[in-house]
């Protein structure tokens, strides 16, 4: 090593500080692996030809007497710095600094966490939006009686409205009164009735759940599917409240630029009834494949609670308390809404086959990791 020995012209304190700062930088700049640690040590601390020894010999030789002590202190500090650097290099695990020792391009090894089901994730998101609007979760059974699923919701026996909801019936019901016959609930709406019978207004509930219909499975139909239902009953609830609530909820779910559009529709348990469309979240209304080039996507059904439903509830409540009048339609009003979770999740994620939700196919689920 034929490095030059730096010259020291002045021995005043600022000159000494400047000279030693240059040397300290030199030490810091010299990076080395543990394998090179010994070479580094010899270079700086070698007993005969070490750079520290050479410099100290040269500078001390020509130093005035009163500069020897400040020089000695500074040489000791520099030596400590070199020793600390050496100790750190030796303590570091070899692999971490062996530049060529590890193929960091190999995959990592931790087991991936499980994947939340995209359908249930969407359902939980919808429910959370309504929690934020002051709705509490209510749940109900999947096996329901004809009364809760149909009669109390103004689907009289033998009424054509029942044709729209092909129903899976439980065996062994023929001998029972028609209102007690058990079936798989075709919608989450029976929970409206159960909640109102149990509790006086005001009501704000959101009802997530599984429902069943006697529908053959195809790409967009499944005999099992999920709904989220909502019910708001209070004094002074209006159709414009229904509009505002669902407009707010759709914006919370799909983004603030989403627009809603309401169409008259028919459900036996609401009046007026409406279908709700949102502006297409993919093309912002311009028209694309996902919205069938209409610019709109139909997402839910809703309406003001039909007074007949309040009458059914009152009739049941009067079996417990003959004076019950909390659901007098002259005093209160309300709205209800319901949406198919599968449909919303399919729109959100561009899923074309509803059956994939129930297959447990890891290749399908891994897309949502």
């Amino acid at each position, binding site marked *: 090593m034929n490095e030059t020995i730096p010259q020291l012209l002045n021995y005043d304190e600022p000159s000494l500080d400047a000279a030693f700062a240059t040397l300290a930088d030199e030490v810091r700049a010299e990076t080395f692996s543990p394998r090179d640690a010994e070479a580094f040590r010899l270079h700086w601390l070698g007993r005969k030809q070490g750079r520290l020894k050479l410099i100290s010999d040269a500078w001390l030789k020509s130093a005035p007497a009163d500069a020897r002590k400040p020089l000695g202190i500074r040489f000791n500090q520099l030596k400590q710095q070199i020793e600390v650097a050496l100790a750190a290099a030796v303590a570091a695990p070899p692999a971490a600094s062996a530049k060529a020792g590890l193929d960091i391009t190999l995959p990592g090894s931790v087991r991936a966490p499980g*994947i939340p089901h995209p359908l249930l994730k969407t359902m939980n998101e919808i429910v959370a939006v309504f929690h934020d609007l002051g709705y509490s*979760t209510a749940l109900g*059974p*999947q096996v329901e009686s004809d009364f809760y699923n149909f009669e109390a919701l103004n689907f009289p026996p033998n009424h054509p409205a029942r044709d729209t909801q092909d129903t899976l019936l439980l065996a062994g019901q023929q001998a029972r009164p028609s209102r007690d016959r*058990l079936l798989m609930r075709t919608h989450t709406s029976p929970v409206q009735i159960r909640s109102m019978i149990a509790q006086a207004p005001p009501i704000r509930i959101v009802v997530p759940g599984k429902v069943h219909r006697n529908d053959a499975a195809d790409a967009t139909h499944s005999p099992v599917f999920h709904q989220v239902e909502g019910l708001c009953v209070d004094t*002074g609830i209006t159709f414009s*409240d229904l509009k505002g609530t669902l407009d707010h909820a759709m914006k919370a779910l799909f983004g603030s630029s989403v627009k809603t559009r309401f169409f*008259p529709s028919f459900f036996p348990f609401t009046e007026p009834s409406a279908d709700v469309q949102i502006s297409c979240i993919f093309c912002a209304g311009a028209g694309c494949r996902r919205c069938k080039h209409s610019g709109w996507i139909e997402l839910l059904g809703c309406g003001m609670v039909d007074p007949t439903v309040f009458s059914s509830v009152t009739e049941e409540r009067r079996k417990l308390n003959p004076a019950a009048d909390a659901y007098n339609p002259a005093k209160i009003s309300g709205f209800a809404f319901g949406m198919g979770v599968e449909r919303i999740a399919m729109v959100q994620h561009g899923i074309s086959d509803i059956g994939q939700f129930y297959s447990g*196919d890891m290749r399908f689920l891994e897309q949502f990791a």
Partner: protein
Amino acid sequence: MNILSNWLRSYVHGITADDRQLAEDLTLRGIAVEGVHDLGLGNGHLFEMDITTNRVDAMNHYGIAREAATIYNLPLAPLDTALPAAQPAPNPFSVQIAPEAQSLCGRFTARVLRNVTITPSTGQVAGFFALLGSKPISNAVDASNFVLQGMGHPTHAFDLDKIDGGIVVRLAHKGERLKLLDGSERTLEADDLVIADHTKALSIAGVMGGWDSMITAETKNILVEAAWFDPVSIRRSSRRHGLHTDASHRFERGADLNACPVANALVAELILQSGGAPEGELVDVIVPSVAARTANRHPIALSLRQVRRHLGTTLDDQPGQSALTADLVRQVLTALGCTLTEAATNGLQPITSNQQQTTFSVQLPSWRLDLEREIDLVEEVARVYGYNRFANTLPTALPVIAHPLAAAESAVRARLLALGYSEAISSSFASEADGAAFVTTNRNQQSTPHGLIALENPLSDEARLLRPSLAPGMLTMLAHNLNRDVREVRLFEQGTIFTGSAEQVVESPSLSLGLTGDLPPTRLHNAKDAAVFELKSVIESLLSLFAASVDALSTSAASALAFSPDAPAWLQPGRSATALLNGAPIACFGELVANQREARKLRQPVFLAVLDLDALYRLPLRRAAARELSRFQAVERDFSFTFADAVQWRTIAQAIAALAIPELTRLTPVEIFRDAKTASAPAASVAPAGHYALLLRCVFQSTQRTLREDELSEWSTRLIAALSALGGTIRT
């Protein structure tokens, strides 16, 4: 149902909107146009309609034209007819409604047409049929169909010469037989309403005509029927005979009693265009009691206050002034066919003083049987005004009450996801074979029935039952993956299972875990057993979320959790277990039994667990409690022992626990060695045949002081003695 825009426009003149705008305007008023198809120059468009079940009045061109007239505030053309002069009849044609049928047939009109010519349709009928893609049959048959599509009322044309005497509307005789237009022979029930002559049934009323009296090329004389039938009766017959016809579809939704003479005349007019003449006047039999509850209902009251109370705020409202005015209500409802008179609610009040008090008495149109209450009229106002002209307002929010199970459910879900299990949803149904094989019989349900729940109308043989267990569904999902070469699968399902009886169904929350894959061995388990132990630790991890004390020494007598080698028959004996919480089974897990695996053609072993969430959720979620951490050094001591295979870990752990050394804070089996190839390499054996070597780690720590060497060696000595007493040999 399809609608021609040109046909519709023939009833409302002056619509300036083009067909696409018309379609959108109708759709926004609830008369949904699902598709618009261009029919070429001059032919207008074909609208594919989706009319809701309550709006039978709009299931035809005239009804939709009425909606268009209401939207655009234009006049609706009347349905005028001009028939040739009638020949005198010797006697009026005889029509009787039997007493027992009076409530089911509210009106029956009949007209005799003589010397008609049966010929292909021409003119407007042929033209519109061609655009609709309807198959023309003959002028007489097409006339009925044309009127149905035009103004919505079903009619029927009989070959008059096949009618014996006259018409009798009556209930069928039980067992009476009738051959229908579709060629089928039907056996009638005593509550089927029929149109009969003096000797035989001619048709099932409102459902389908009969074969013997149908119009043929030879027909010379015709009887045109237009009648009104009771919706419930028609629906019953239609369903019983599996005959859903255009006529039954309309009658069962409520037809217009007043439309009968109009429809009859329209059909007669079309048939007579090819020759012939009516004979006698229209025979029109009306049952007054039916008319009173349909066409001639009492007026209902509608108050403006109620309109505003239900509908709320519109975008057009001015401060202190709702856009929902009395004038608006009057205009909308009048256009729809209602007759409004302002009820004098308070004779002293001038009409203009307070519109809010306005109350109308509304006479309902005969074709709108769906309108019967004030709220129905409120809906009509909102519908025609336009839903999207209402403002978006928000009701006040209420405080949210958390569902009692929500926290537990989401804790279980989050834990399983963190452990690498993905969430799945399987079918709610099970086959009878799977139901019998997988029903869990060891649940604590002595008080309630726990039989299988069958469906009356299952979707398939594979779905006859409501699932009594999540296991078959999980197996189906594992098989789905294996069949697609996905060979490492971890799934869970939180779902409902169904047991009980036909009178009382018990729905219980349950959890299933499914695991298959090439798991590496661990220091304690060989590869073959690793999956069983993974499931065990998942179950322990879940239980540890709840108040159950699943402490580190889970094998100690004080622990609430124990594992028994007994398991249901669908798990492989010896490779499965039941987890008992406070002595009651809460979960079972292990490898699927061989015969089930073979039956499902699974290419590799699969492992399942089911856990009773109902029992788990009865426990509160564990509230974490911190303890003081010791400031003193912990000391680790390893021991290596050889034991006979019969000595289980629980026995070892219990023997050590029995030493009651409070400073022994942790006891871990670190590694188990077994010599797989004992026979071939006895010299290298780590443990003799029938034995295993166990590396055991003890951690000693005191919260009070630093441990001394002499007490550590005393504990080691006691520990070695205890394990030697179990037949263990310490290795050096």
